[in-house]
């Protein structure tokens, strides 16, 4: 009798085990706010709807830390089933032979194929190479301009007319900079972070100055630092603090900028649309969002991170993995994610859902990033991504700090970038 019961229990357990698929999923959080909690919530929802799939989530830290963890697990021969990594990491991951394209699955799975066609084309630019799809958008953004409407009113500016050109930005920023009787700055006009290890905002300014930081036909091998638009972009950043005195001197940290804006210490900031949620919840004043001003044209790079599939992970788990990715990149979830975080819902279908419509009506600030997509370019796609970013960011910092002339800095950076790319780009 006892034996029978035992076998019965074992049998049920065995059955349960046989049906249960366990996935490993790494994800990063790149902006301010409790985003990890939201992602864990979505995963719980997925598990509730798919009781036979369990997802082990690994919160990997910021983008760089998460990338390091995923690469470490790949090197240890134990890659995750899926992970969210920067869309820009395509070339680095291909060079490691670490990822698989989605094409074979798209051929078999019509839902997946349709999903891929429903993403905003701008968000797919960093995903595709030679006609193949290597990643699917999840937390996607563009950098936008946030501005404090109360400060605008106080300075006699029209709060419904944000600056549209670089000149206007400087002029507005001068009026918005507030000093006390001793000359101490109470509020700066504008802050464009010189993010310690990124080129994102420099790319935005470069596009606005009529250039692009890379050659789109360069196959991840041609970075263009030594050009007039890049020089103009770097010089503009330096001038905001050093010439016009409307921005804090020195290198401005990426991480603390949304907090400074929400605290009313800076009247205008350049930041990711992904920070919209944080600013919405923390700013005690009405604020607006707008396209980033142009020098010769509007434009920003897209940003953010996508789902990847890894070679060497268990092929038997592919169905479950794809089911999970489809859920996370689906229209409903993308709409919810956009509401929670401020990231741009990457699916066009999301924007027709009642949830999203109500939200956009209440917070029209959320629409700016989507509209700006029409002017967006792919974000720097290059081998040795972090090394290249570090070299360019360092040159930019040297210019912003007044340590190097912009000509000299870009020339040296170009030489070093070419050097760093040599091992991958011998053609």
């Amino acid at each position, binding site marked *: 009798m006892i034996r029978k019961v035992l076998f019965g229990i074992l049998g049920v357990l065995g059955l349960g085990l046989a049906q249960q698929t366990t996935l490993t999923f790494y994800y990063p959080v790149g902006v301010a706010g409790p985003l990890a909690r939201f992602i864990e919530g979505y995963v719980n929802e997925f598990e509730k709807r798919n009781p036979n799939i369990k997802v082990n989530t690994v919160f990997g830290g910021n983008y760089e830390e998460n990338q390091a963890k995923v690469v470490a697990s790949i090197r240890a021969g134990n890659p995750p089933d899926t992970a969210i990594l920067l869309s820009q990491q395509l070339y680095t991951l291909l060079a490691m032979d670490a990822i698989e394209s989605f094409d074979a699955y798209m051929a078999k799975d019509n839902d997946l194929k349709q999903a891929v066609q429903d993403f905003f084309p701008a968000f797919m630019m960093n995903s595709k190479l030679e006609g193949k799809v290597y990643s699917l958008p999840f937390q996607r953004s563009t950098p936008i301009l946030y501005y404090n409407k109360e400060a605008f009113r106080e300075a006699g500016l029209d709060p419904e007319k944000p600056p549209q050109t670089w000149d206007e930005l400087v002029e507005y920023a001068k009026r918005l900079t507030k000093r006390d009787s001793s000359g101490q700055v109470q509020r*700066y006009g504008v802050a464009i972070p010189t993010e*310690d290890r990124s080129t994102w905002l420099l790319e935005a300014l470069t596009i606005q100055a009529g250039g692009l930081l890379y050659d789109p036909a360069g196959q991840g091998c041609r970075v263009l630092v030594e050009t007039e638009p890049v020089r103009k972009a770097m010089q503009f950043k330096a001038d905001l603090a050093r010439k016009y005195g409307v921005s804090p001197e020195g290198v401005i940290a990426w991480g603390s900028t949304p907090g400074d804006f929400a*605290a009313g*210490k800076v009247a205008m900031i350049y930041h990711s649309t992904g920070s919209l949620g944080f600013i919405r919840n923390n700013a005690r004043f009405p604020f607006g969002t707008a396209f980033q001003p142009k020098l010769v044209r509007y434009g920003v790079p897209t940003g953010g991170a996508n789902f990847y599939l890894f070679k060497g992970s268990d092929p038997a788990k592919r169905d479950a993995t794809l089911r999970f990715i489809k859920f996370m990149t689906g229209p409903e979830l993308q709409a919810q994610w956009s509401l929670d975080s401020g990231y741009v819902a990457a699916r066009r279908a999301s924007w027709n859902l009642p949830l999203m419509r109500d939200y956009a009506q209440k917070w029209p600030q959320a629409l700016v990033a989507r509209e700006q997509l029409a002017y967006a370019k792919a974000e720097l796609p290059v081998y040795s991504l972090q090394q290249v970013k570090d070299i360019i960011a360092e040159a930019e910092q040297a210019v912003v700090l007044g340590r190097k002339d912009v000509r000299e800095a870009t020339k040296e950076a170009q030489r070093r970038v070419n050097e760093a790319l040599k091992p991958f780009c011998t053609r």
Partner: protein
Amino acid sequence: MGRPLRGAWIFLIPTLFFLLSFTYFPFLLTAWEGLPSLRNLMSPENLNALRVTGLYALITVPLSIGLGLLAAVAVEGDSRIRLLVRSLVFHPVILPTVAFAAVFLYLLNPLGPLQGFLRALGWQNPLGDPLGAFLSVSMIGVLKDAGLYMLYYLAGLQTIPKELVEAARVDGAGRVASFFRVTLPLLSPTTFFVGVMATLAALRSVDQIFVLTKGGPVGATDHLLYRVYVLGFEYFDFPQAGALTLVLLVTLTLLALLALPRLERGVHYDA
């Protein structure tokens, strides 16, 4: 010293096992992967990291030791105020460095609570300026460890017989003279020990750099260990990261071999 126990190695097995598998084996592996890259090590970035680390040690080691000693001498005794000051100085030691550094992320913000003070110093945005960032990172290292060294010095002070200090006083030495002539020399075993600890701490200090500066601006806080991390886990250049680790390890070993006997000779172990 007696003859070594014949079965001693049996007792060493557990320790040796862990040392071999988690220290010596990875070390050899690193050497194997890193050796061929040794000649690529003279890059400007690596030399900069070496310079930053050296400067960091040069600043933080004497300052943290000095502060620890000063605090120990100041708070020796049992009065309530002294106990309070003692716990205040010691407090940063029990905080995780990351949390401690995060507090400074807020304090050193150009528009943060110290704005007026920073402006008076001419450093509106200390973390955004190469020298300011380096000094901030160093200061955090000093404040973090000084409390621990204070504790060592307090223990050291207790081993000094009161009669010696009193005798010096009777002979006419003032407070300062008796401190430098009697107390400090008698503390030299502690100073030696703390010195070694502080140097090791300086070479391993990297947490606040992760939190505050990420090696920047323009490489001003690019500590050797941070550079190893970046090379290995962000550029995925494991050979070069391995080579740099090798240099660090060999330097440390050489330093220890050179310094230990020399320092020991100058140490007063007998009261």
